[in-house]
């Protein structure tokens, strides 16, 4: 490293008063116009704005108050966003649940699934100890459709051509 580079690197420390020039550095500055000009700039920059006074005792409390208020607002915004998401999800779920029975019982389903056939897959522990007559009664109840048969069945399409069938299906779906 040249003496010019060494002096340049040391300038901020000397300008801020953390360090002092060595004799060799001082001699170099006295004889090197480049370094002397740089030193003039660095020492002026180090002094620049020293007369600008800010009071940390005033700024600090005001600043903390702002930071606290901003954080409070941020928490509130996050809470509102999360609440909106939950409400949105709940609405979507409700809409989905409203759609599901309609689709399941619509005309697409060619073979209506009886409650009894689904009941076969159910694990009903409370029926384990039931008497045969009780079981019969429960099974008979499962076999009863929950909604009137007319709603479960599709429209009567026998004897219609394709376009008539489509129209009938559409009007049944819209009903």
């Amino acid at each position, binding site marked *: 490293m040249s003496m010019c580079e060494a002096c340049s690197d040391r*300038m*901020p*420390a000397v*300008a*801020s008063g*953390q360090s002092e020039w060595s004799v060799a550095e001082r001699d170099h500055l006295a004889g090197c116009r480049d370094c002397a*000009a*740089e030193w*003039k*700039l*660095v020492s*002026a*920059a*180090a*002094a*620049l*704005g*020293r*007369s*600008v*006074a*800010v009071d*940390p005792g005033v*700024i*600090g*409390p*005001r*600043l*903390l108050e*702002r*930071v606290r208020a*901003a954080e409070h607002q941020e928490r509130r915004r996050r809470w509102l966003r999360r609440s909106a998401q939950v409400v949105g999800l709940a609405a979507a779920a409700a809409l989905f649940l409203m759609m599901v029975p309609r689709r399941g019982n619509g005309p697409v389903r060619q073979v209506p699934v009886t409650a009894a056939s689904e009941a076969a897959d159910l694990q009903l522990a409370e029926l384990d100890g039931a008497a045969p007559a009780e079981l019969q009664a429960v099974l008979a109840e499962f076999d009863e459709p929950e909604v009137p048969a007319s709603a479960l069945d599709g429209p009567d399409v026998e004897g219609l051509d394709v376009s008539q069938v489509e129209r009938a299906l559409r009007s049944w779906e819209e009903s």
Partner: protein
Amino acid sequence: MVAMTESEPLSDASLAAAWRAGDEGAAAEIVRRHAGAVARFLYSSGAGRSDIDDLVQEALFRAFRKLDTWRGEASLRSWLCCIAGNLLKDEYRRQRGRRVVSIQDDQVIDTADPHEEAAANDLEAQLRAGLQSLPRLQREVFLMRAQQGCEYGDIAAALGTTPGAARVHYHHAVKRLKELVS
């Protein structure tokens, strides 16, 4: 509350960690340590004297709001100067190019000798005007180095460049300022 002994003040990193853990005393200490330096940086970058209080508060506000992102690769001082520089740029844009700066602000130099005072005022005004004419990166690197005493590595980390590039920006700034400041 931060525990500080006179012989061994807490590092900026420890203060930042204490603030993140909810210690407001640590925040007050950070302000005490750096508010003056941020003010000088802003003033030297061209901010008007009457705007300094507001700008310092805004710069520190921005800093505290994202102190979590300061990982200590750059010194806190250089990181704060970088935020202050961005703030000044935003203000300049917000005011649609109108200078946020008043280079002709009255200089208040506390010196007994009127000739010395005039010379100091003249040099300060020239330097401030010269700094305004530099590209932003050169100005900020020069001030972080010459005024704030930051190392090139710190400056590079704060500005997202390399120490070598920071050194080059500094030397370009010095070269240009030598021509502008007599």
